[in-house]
Every structure is written in structure tokens, then in C-alpha cells.
């Protein structure tokens, strides 16, 4: 686990970044980017989630590989659920 303690300035930096990204994502949604709107929104959300997981939840500094395995598995299983369900819905019109 995170034995070394981060400076509070570091946390403030992450915090500012998260707030900026929130404002950006809200602002960008008013701009017409076509289908890219969704992509941008999800990319920004993922960056924010990564910031929280890696720094606030200390995953970046953990020596424990298992934590990362658990996170990756959870995302992978979520992907299975979404992808294999969509495999049905996306191909219904074809048949």
C-alpha cells in the first residue's frame, strides 16, 4: 500500500485538474461535434476516473499487483456484459 505520503499540494493539483475537466466537458457538450460529442464526453470522464483511481485511491503507488488485477478484471467483465449484449442488439436489423 501507499507507504509514502503525498504532499497536500499534489492532491490540490489533481483536484484542480478534475474541476477543470468537469467545466470543459460541460462546455464542450454545447459545441456541435457530431458523433464526436459522445466520444469526447466519455474520454474526459475516463480521464477523470483515472485521476481519481490512480492518485486519490493510490493505485499508482501501490506495490500490490493484485489491486490492479482486480480493477482490470472488473472493467473486463463489464466490457463482456456490454459487448456480448450489444452483439445481439447491433445485429438484429441484419437478420
Amino acid at each position, binding site marked *: 500500500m501507499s507507504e509514502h505520503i503525498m504532499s497536500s499540494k499534489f492532491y490540490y493539483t489533481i483536484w484542480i485538474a478534475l474541476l477543470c475537466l468537469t467545466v470543459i466537458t460541460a462546455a464542450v457538450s454545447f459545441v456541435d461535434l457530431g458523433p464526436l460529442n459522445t466520444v469526447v464526453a466519455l474520454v474526459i470522464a475516463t480521464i477523470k476516473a483515472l485521476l481519481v483511481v490512480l492518485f486519490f485511491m493510490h493505485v499508482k503507488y501501490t506495490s500490490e499487483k493484485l489491486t490492479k488485477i482486480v480493477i482490470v478484471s*472488473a472493467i473486463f467483465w463489464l466490457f463482456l*456484459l456490454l459487448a*456480448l*449484449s450489444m*452483439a*445481439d*442488439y447491433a445485429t438484429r436489423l*441484419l*437478420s
Partner: protein
Amino acid sequence: MATAAISAERENYLNKEYGIRSWLLTTDHKRIALLYLASITFFFFIGGFFALLIRLELLTPAGDLVQADTYNKLFSMHGQVMIFFFLIPSIPAVLGNFLVPLMIGAKDLAFPRINLLSWYLYIIAGTIYLHCIVTGGVDTGWTFYTPFSTAFSNTRVIEAGISIFIAGFSSILTGLNFVVTIHRMRAPGMTWSRLPLFIWAMYATSIIQLLGTPVLAITLLLVVFERAFNLGIFDPTRGGDPLLFQHLFWFYSHPAVYIMILPAMAVESEVVACFTRKRIFGYNFVAMSSIAIAVFGFLVWAHHMFVAGISLYSALVFSILSYLVAVPSAIKVFNWTATMYKGSISFTTPMLYAFGFIGLFTMGGLTGLFLACLGIDVHVHDTYFVIAHFHYIMVGGAVMGYLGGLHFWWPKISGRMYPEAWGRLAALLVFSGFNLTFFPQFILGYMGMPRRYWQYPPEFQVLNVLSTAGSTILAIGYVLPMVYFLWSMRYGKIASDNPWGAAGLEWKTSSPPPTFNFDEEPEVTWEAYNYEQIPAPAEVNIER
């Protein structure tokens, strides 16, 4: 640790404390296992009672014993009780709870209080479900298919849904406890390659419990919301898709089959090794096949939906993926068989159950190939063929495994031997009764008798009569062990620490074990299943 016989006087987890409080507030994994044993046995007999009524109704083609609505409730509640309140907790929560810490040399599970909490959650869920049964029951089938469950059923769907939601969390917490325990609590020297195969399979089971159960939980919660608050997520009159429910439901409920069967395979590996006195053939492959089943098991769910209206292309994908999961199951059967080669085989009750398990699981698995096969599934889907198939897996497989395991570890759990002759008789009764009950249903299914039928065309009667006859034999086979297990707790022969001459850490402590499992912390310096180093028992209980 060497001598037994005097262990009646020794302090152990059973005689350390007395009184109801010492049980209801215990955090000892062994006592919690016994709490589970008592509670799931209760639900097993409730579910079994429903099953007998179903079989009696089907004795004649006309619906003459109970009303149609009653019949629909009977099969719905039979399924829900047996699956959520018996099979899913059966081996993990009873044998797993008892054995996981013992087998890896830990004093307890990682989170003893959470373990107790998960039993209480189970009891809360069970109480709600009993209330649901008493006040009218539920008639949605165990599957809760929408829109019937959300908009048409007039029964207590909300109560049943909440109850199963809570039972799900009990199951999740058990799985979580096992995974953490197996990762963090192994005794020194207990490396992953030295773990008993029981632990590997239990680990795989826990993965499914952790990642599958929450999806069922949210699905049932949405059904409850839809009934209670008029949300419209699965409602076709608002443009909702009834198949979405099925996707989400089977995402859990297909892997749930592996929650039931993997632990039975876990028991099989231990029992077969012990009574052939051999290391399991192909340890690595058996261990890895458990993990493979857990992972592949999540890729196949829509094979329950081939005729439900999913797209042609996704049906093809799910069919081919279904065959992938059959491979690791086949590997296990072949390896158990190969283990017997040049073994030293004795025919004790657990081994009889193991033989039965292999036979019935093989037949259940092979008929699974029929159902994964698109062309055949269209005809046999939702017929008695499916009923027969999954009873071969869940009763022929999981329950045989559970009973075999209960006999195998009974000396360790209770400190007493069960009566061997009665045990063998019961095993034979269960095996023959089971086949008589369920084999005719394969034929019925291919003949075209749909499932969940209260009345049926007369040409199906003879096979149904056979099936009902078998179920009475099966019932006797199930009541017998309960009687002699209870009897043996008082009158059974005192068991030695290791009556079977079995390998495994759990046999190195006393019977029954002390509260903290081992008098001194074990250190493992040997490989799993080192039968060449363990003397065979001097003909204990294997007189022929």
C-alpha cells in the same frame, strides 16, 4: 495430533461453548458452516416437498391434484428455493466455509464477522421468502421473465425479488471472504501449486459469485422497481425490450450453474484422490480447468435465448462459445477417470457418490451439447429435455457432490462416523431413484412435452408415471442420510483424526478441530495429494 479416540474429551469447536448465544453470535467459520448446514437442509426439504407435489400432479394428464395457479407457484417456488436457498449456498457455504481455512492452514476466514453477517443475510432472505410462501407465494417461474413478472403476475413478486436480492448479497460476501482468505491467509509453505483442488475450484466459484451476482441483484431490483414504482425499463408497452431482462438475468444465471457445479467438482477431486490413494491425474489441468470454466462461463449466457428472438448472428456466436466451456468440463471427467488407473480403490460411501457424480455429470454434460447446438435447441428448448439436462447437472452433479462431501468430511465435522452400510444404501437409492426420475424426461422432452405444464396430452403419461415413481425413491434416498447423520452425532463410532488416510491439512488436526483449527501453526513442506507418504488406514470402514 497422533492419537485419536480420546478426542471426545478434548476441547474442540463443538464443545468449547454451549448455549444458543454461542452459536448465533459465533464468528468461528466451522460453527457458521453448521448454521448454514441446518438452514439449507431446512430449505432443501421445503423445495423437495414442492417437487414431490409437482411429481404427484403430473401422475395423471389432467390437472387434478392442485389448481393451475397452485401448480405454477409450486414449480416457481421449487426452483427459487432449491437454487437460491439450497444449491448456491450448499457446498460453498457449508463445506467451503468449514474447509477453506482448514485446508490452507488458516485460523479462520479473513473476515469472520462478515461471514456471520452473510449467514444472517441468508436467514433474513430466507425468512422473507418463507413469508412470501406462506402468504401466497410467487408464480413467475424461477426466472422472473418480464413482462409477466412486472405487469401480469398477481403474486408476491416484489417480496420474492427482494428476498433473492438479499440472498445474493449473502452469496457475494461468502465469495469475497473466500477470495481474500485464499490470497492472504495461506499457511507458510502453502504455495498455489500445493493448494488442494478443492480450493482452486472454490476460488473459481467465488469469482463467479463476485462478478455475476451483482448483475442479478440489479436486474431483480429493476423488476421490483418496475412493479412498485411503475418504472418502465422492461415494459414493452413503453418500448422496453423484454429480452433485455433475459440478457441481464442469464448473465448471472448461466454462470450460477457453475456456482453449483464447480464446488461439486471440488469435492470430487478430493474424494477420488483419497479413495484411489493417488495424486489427481493432471493436477495443473484440473486446477486451470476450474478457472477456465469460471471465465468461459460468462461468455455463453444467450444459449438460453436461441428461440427468444435474439439475432441470428449473436445466436451463432453464443453457440460456438458454449462449446468452449464444454472442453474444461470434459478435461475434468477424463482426469478423474485417469486417476483411477493403477490406483488403490475402495468403495466407501463418498466414493460411491463420486462414481455416481461422474456418471450423472457426464450424461448431464453430454446433453448440454444438444442444447448448445442451435438446430437441436430449437426443438428441445423449454421442454422436459431441458428439465432433465439441468437436473442431471444440478441434482445428479451438485447434490451428489454435496452429499458425497458431507459423508467424506462428516468425521471431521462431527467427530463421529456415520453408519457405512446405511450410507451405501442411501447412495444407491439416490443414484437409482435419480435416474428413474429424470431419464424418462429426456425422452419426454424430445417427444415435445413443454415444461411448466400443469396438464398434458395423455400420450406422455407412462413416462411421467415412471418419473414420479423414481421421485419417491429419490425422496427416501434423501431422507435416509438426514436420519443417520443425526443419529451418528450421538451414537456414531468416534472418528479418528484421519479415518480415511487422506492427504490434506484438514486431516492433520483433530476431529473435530479445535476452535482455531490447529494447535500449532502448520507449515507445509509437502506437495498436495502426497498419498505415497500417508499410510493407508488399517481397513477402517472398508470391510467388504
